């Protein structure tokens, strides 16, 4: 998928964590948290990365900005390979790529005022100070729906939703091009979730942002994303435009995920595909398709060989990794 409009292109990204044992800390094996992932995001678009806990979605995000070292692969951001960039380059890249975290209670320093939290990147990266700094921070605070009077308040004075707004302001203060949102609304109350989602959408339009949106809630992802990738045990099992994916889910795992979401329409009761089993341990992944043990369609070939992600069934730009999908 080489495309001039791509802001970010990840190809064959692998991040393994070594398991060390014994006195000499010998490496006895690897946890393949991310095992060969490829996707790209066009400028101004939102790619959703969905999956259950432990499937590797957060590790993908961390590998992209090199918070954890990737084992192999390429991450191309505007013609620069992030994974091989030197320190100076990396500093600049981290100005262009920022992160919004899940938990607004633990991701803000309780001893810093809002002004310092939001303004610190400006000080460090751009050397701003004094009234120029304050003005910029105040303007951004009102942009994310907080009062500029809050500039000297501490995080504990705010509710969860307001804290997440602070997190959003901090992420946007350096005018990044790509924002990685790691479960930005899953710690928030239902009535606050929609406020933050709308805010993120508005900011995307105003600043022309590109999002990598990580979530486990399929309904939120459908609303928010243009393209969706479903992950299972370190791999992408299905990737398609949001509309296409939700209309024609092809991978059995995607189908089970979708039907497992509790719906608010009581008339839909009892239309669920039952799911058996649990996510296997990443320490001893099964050979063959990782989903085979839980899959209702499993056959011999699934247990032996790992399916690759390929375009299937005459659907345009709809990629599935499954032996049983034609």
């Amino acid at each position, binding site marked *: 998928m080489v495309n001039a409009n791509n802001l970010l292109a990840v190809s064959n990204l692998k991040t393994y964590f070594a398991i060390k044992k014994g006195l000499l800390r010998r490496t006895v094996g690897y946890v393949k948290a991310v095992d060969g992932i490829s996707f790209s995001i066009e400028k101004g678009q939102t790619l959703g990365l969905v999956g259950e806990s432990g499937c590797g979605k957060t590790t993908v995000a961390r590998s992209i900005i090199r918070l954890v070292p990737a084992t192999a692969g390429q991450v191309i951001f505007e013609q620069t390979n992030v994974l091989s960039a030197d320190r100076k380059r990396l500093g600049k890249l981290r100005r262009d790529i920022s992160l919004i975290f899940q938990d607004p209670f633990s991701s803000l320093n309780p001893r810093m005022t809002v002004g310092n939290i939001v303004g610190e990147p400006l000080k460090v990266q751009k050397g701003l100070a004094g009234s120029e700094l304050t003005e910029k921070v105040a303007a951004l605070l009102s942009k994310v729906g907080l009062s500029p009077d809050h500039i000297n308040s501490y995080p504990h004075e705010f509710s969860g939703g307001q804290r997440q707004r602070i997190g959003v302001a901090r992420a946007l203060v350096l005018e990044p091009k790509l924002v990685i949102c790691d479960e930005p609304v899953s710690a928030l109350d*239902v*009535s*606050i979730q929609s406020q933050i989602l709308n805010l993120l959408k508005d900011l995307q339009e105003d600043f022309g942002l590109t999002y990598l949106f990580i979530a486990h809630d399929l*309904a939120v992802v459908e*609303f*928010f994303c243009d393209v969706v990738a479903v992950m299972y045990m370190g791999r992408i099992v299905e990737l398609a435009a949001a509309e296409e994916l939700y209309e024609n889910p092809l991978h059995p795992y995607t189908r089970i995920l979708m039907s497992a979401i509790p719906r608010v329409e*009581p008339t839909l009761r009892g239309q669920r595909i039952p*799911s058996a089993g649990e996510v296997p341990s990443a320490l001893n992944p099964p050979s063959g398709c990782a989903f085979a043990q839980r899959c209702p369609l499993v056959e011999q070939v699934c247990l032996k060989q790992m399916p690759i992600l390929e375009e299937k069934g005459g659907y345009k730009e709809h990629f599935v990794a499954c032996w049983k999908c034609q």
Partner: protein
Amino acid sequence: MDDDGILLSVKNLSTHFFTEDGIAKAVQDVSFSIKKSKTFALVGESGCGKSVTALSIMRLVPEPPGKIVAGKIIFEGRDLSVLSEKQMRSVRGNKIAMIFQEPMTSLNPVYTVGNQIVEAIKLHQKKSTSQAWADAVGMLRKVGIADPERRINEYPHQLSGGMRQRVMLAMAVSCEPALLIADEPTTALDVTIQAQILDLLDELQKQNGMSILLITHDLGIVAERADSVAVMYASRIVEVADSQSLFAEPLHPYTQGLLKSLPRLGFSGRRLQTISGNVPEPLRFPAGCKFHPRCPVGCNDKRCQTVEPKLRNVKGGRYVACWYAKEYEEK
């Protein structure tokens, strides 16, 4: 509300916390009843008092600072709120059992799964250790744990999140309680595992005929699993209904707002509807109707700002605490 087949009825329950910063009125004037073999859901956002309501029923509110200041909790003809601690102990875990959100922190990490289930069984039933142990294996099998003879000797950390919640359930239903209180039982779990645990709850309910008080913030779970629902907001119940009619036609502006603000599968708008403002904190509840600062209907109404509406019967079996719900009465 007629009294036939009612297992538990909570009447005008108020639980307050007396803190240094003032009195936090966590639960105020809450009334509801749960029918035998039915699932009753208590739904609301964080801090609305749903967990404190459950803890009050179990008499597990830490005292001090907390205290049940008013109300009755009638369970099988007895008022639990006046029982002595000793009497309460024979109810807790035996007639009423509870499971919690985070199965890792509610299981004891230094005892095996078997030890913990056997302890619960022996505490309430006259059984020999070997009999209790055999029962525990049977319970684990019943909650869908494969190879229970081996699992029973394992420690909680050796189990996955879904399995720990199954163990919690095995322990909770081991004495065949009449009421199971499930406080956010699946919030810490993945959706596919969540569906499995909820299915298991349904199954156990069918087998034992127990009632379930399901506490959750997830309206989807309520719609799929509950027979009737109470919606809580800022320490009070604002709406009670059977779940079909609640989702078909929510009457309270808060319930309406919540349902509209949910992203749903198949929704294709560009923006979600929102409820403006934030959830109020228990120490700083607004006067009048607690929802009025966020309410699209009553935010400018003098009465909503000053007088708190009571939960009252409108339109058949439905209860709403809203001044504007009056119009439904007349219809």
